[in-house]
């Protein structure tokens, strides 16, 4: 088991290293000069060069990479070209906003998705199953921006019961937080609910048709026990993987939802920074998003190893 865990950790470290290399070099390969974007096309060459020097953009790329990656370990994430402030400071300001929207969305989506998926599978072919399948297909197929704007129109413009935009954190009062976050959380969780519902339904249907479930039923075990103790437990393994993958949304934010509801989170920051070629912000954000995603997957992988010895023995 220890060998398995060490192997997984090493693989994760390689992935994180590769992500850092890709994030850095892809940003620098993209055509566009961040200084020219920041200063505009009317700035003089002197002004452009002065800012390039100040930000070390004239240094060789390799040296810029090592400067950045070594800074990651010392807490110096470089300076944002757009904001002319430390990148780490800006990211840490934005992160709580993204997490306070993303985390409830993920929790709600996980609970609702698993319940819907289970009900749908157990009541396969019923009207309820059809309705839930239709809803999840609609949720997956409907663009989030359209749903967001429609919700704003109905609840903020017409009914005037919810704010149109902005953000209030839990520290501003739970009621305020609830009022400001209900629409973005709903929007963000919609796609996740649909995905988890479908995944749970498919897995449950697979499991329910297995021999051991039939045997359990034949042995007179109650239907409730068969579903929740025997079927769902096994059906949830791939679902948990899917949920773990969604953690990147909790950290990285949803660009569309943050854009529509004007939530100044990581998603908005990343979008704006990619357009502005704000290297430090993009590199550092991508690095940390990948770090968290890889960590979550590592935990899931290790848990799989505990739950299923076959996975451990296969080495992957």
């Amino acid at each position, binding site marked *: 088991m220890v060998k398995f865990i060490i192997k997984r950790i090493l693989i994760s470290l390689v992935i994180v290293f590769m992500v850092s290399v890709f994030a850095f070099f892809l940003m620098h390969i993209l055509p566009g000069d961040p200084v020219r974007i920041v200063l505009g096309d009317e700035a003089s*060459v002197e002004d452009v060069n002065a800012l390039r020097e100040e930000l070390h953009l004239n240094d060789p790329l390799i040296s810029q990479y090592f400067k950045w990656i070594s800074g990651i370990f010392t807490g110096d994430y470089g300076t944002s070209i757009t904001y002319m402030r430390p990148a780490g400071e800006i990211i840490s*300001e934005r992160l709580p906003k993204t997490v306070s929207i993303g985390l409830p969305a993920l929790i709600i989506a996980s609970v609702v998705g698993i319940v819907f998926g289970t009900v749908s599978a157990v009541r396969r072919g019923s009207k309820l199953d059809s309705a839930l399948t239709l809803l999840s297909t609609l949720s997956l197929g409907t663009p989030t921006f359209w749903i967001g704007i429609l919700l704003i129109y109905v609840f903020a413009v017409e009914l005037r019961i919810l704010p*149109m935009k902005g953000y209030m954190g839990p520290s501003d009062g739970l009621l305020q937080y609830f009022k400001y976050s209900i629409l973005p959380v709903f929007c963000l969780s919609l796609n996740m609910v649909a995905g988890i519902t479908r995944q749970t339904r498919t897995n449950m249907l697979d499991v329910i048709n297995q021999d051991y479930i039939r045997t359990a039923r034949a042995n007179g075990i109650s239907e409730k026990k068969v579903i929740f103790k025997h079927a769902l437990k096994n059906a949830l393994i791939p679902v948990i993987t899917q949920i773990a993958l969604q953690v990147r949304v909790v950290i990285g934010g949803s660009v569309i939802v943050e854009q529509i509801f*004007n939530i100044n989170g990581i998603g908005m920051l990343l979008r704006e920074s990619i357009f502005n070629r704000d290297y430090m912000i993009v590199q550092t954000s991508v690095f940390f998003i990948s770090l968290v995603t890889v960590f979550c997957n590592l935990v899931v992988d290790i848990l799989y190893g505990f739950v299923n010895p076959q996975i451990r023995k296969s080495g992957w």
Partner: protein
Amino acid sequence: MKKVLCVILLCMLLIPAFAGGGHETKEASPAFEPESRFGGTLVIGTTATVSSLSTVDMRGTDQFFENLLYEPLLTVGPNGTIVPVLAESYSADPESLTYTFKLRQGVKFHDGSDFNAEVAKWNLEYYKETGVYGSSYVGVIDSIEIIDDYTIVLHLSSWDAFLPVALARGGGASYMMSKQAFDTYGADYLKRHPVSTSPFMFESWTDGESIKLVKFKDYWRGEPYLDAVTIEMFSEAMVLQAAFEAGDVHIFSVSDGDMAAYLENNGYFIQKSSSPSMAYVIGFNCNDPSDPFSDVRVRQAVSYAIDSDQIVNTCFTFNGTVATQLDPVGGTYYNENINPYDVDIEKAKALLAEAGYADGFTTTLTTMNQWNLPLPVQMIAEQLKGIGINVELNIVERAQFFVLQDGWGAEGGMFASCFSLPAGGGSQIAANFAQNLGSAFGRTSLLHPDDVNELIQKAKNSSGDESVEYIKSAEELVYNKYCLMNVFAMTNNMTAISSNVIDSEFGKDTGSSNTLWKAYLVK
């Protein structure tokens, strides 16, 4: 099941339909008695964002915030004229290379300190030293001399007739901050807590969400009526529009002509700026002998084939006008001798044949995927097919465009861009067609002929009408003789103003020019 589906879909269709009506159809006008005025909070919406509130960090695109947070020495007034604000007047003396500014007396900053010559001198010097456009806009200022408490003289290293434009335009050069606040709290503090002379004092800034300002009772023009001004930032234009229609936002800059037309049709007042703010231009790769555009006849043929009327009527219906040069009719630098290049396909074909391209050729048209550029560019490509020129479009994002614009020669073909017109087109002619430019539109590809350069240098070295005449002569060469650029349209800024906002004059001269010190809300 079908019934349920129908009801859901019907509801989705009906909600927007019901939501459209019910608004007043009154244009903003000052026809209300003083007693009906009340304070309240004016909410201005924007899709713009800002990363620092200090004048030295502000860029041209931040002018929206600058005009609400600060006051400048000079600003752009009606029809692109330069008008004094914190300066009472200014005079130019090209022979002694000096500009003399008489400053307004009795002006106080929000922290109670006085605005005077020392503060103005410090601001200009500080900007030159640390401002993002320090060398671009005010690099020509050699030293600043204080004559008395309210008079300063700018000594220049070489004469620059366009310095007042550089001081009046967005980008912070002549917007005044409190020196006392700087000395007390330092530069970093002012990035997030501006202290100025404007009618509304800074109260708070929630990054990317809102900036709150409150009335400054000691404002030099008198105490404002409004209690407060809030700048609400929206990242989505459609949500901003919805907020305006719901009455949550009183004023917002409309970037889309269709949105402006929709609002006007629904009874809202749309303020168009008194002079155009943007010019849409096509530049040609003239310096590469292998490029067909190195031949002036090909450039002229393209100009005769572009149907500006059609473009404006399709793409800029609400706020656009057909243009032939960088100034509108009646503008300071407008030259009536400029060839309008009226559509003449036969003439265009003849010019192409004369240049050896009777069968046409294939070329590239590069532009940026913003500022309403892609649609007109597609139309131009279609129009040029009519004279046998096959245009391959190269629509790139902003970041790439700026790089291409600097070193455009390698791309070849044509380049479509937008020119901002801070105070008419004179400064753009000088900034793009003089020789030895550090950066400019088509720096490596446009011709910079000696005769054009000579006229631009003469314009820079003179002042007033004389300078204007030199620019007009340079324009004749740029458009008529060399056909270096085709200006096909101009657009004005548009601002949607709620009917209960009076006397704001928001967006009347430039995108964010205003008279908020005398504005008020009516119930």
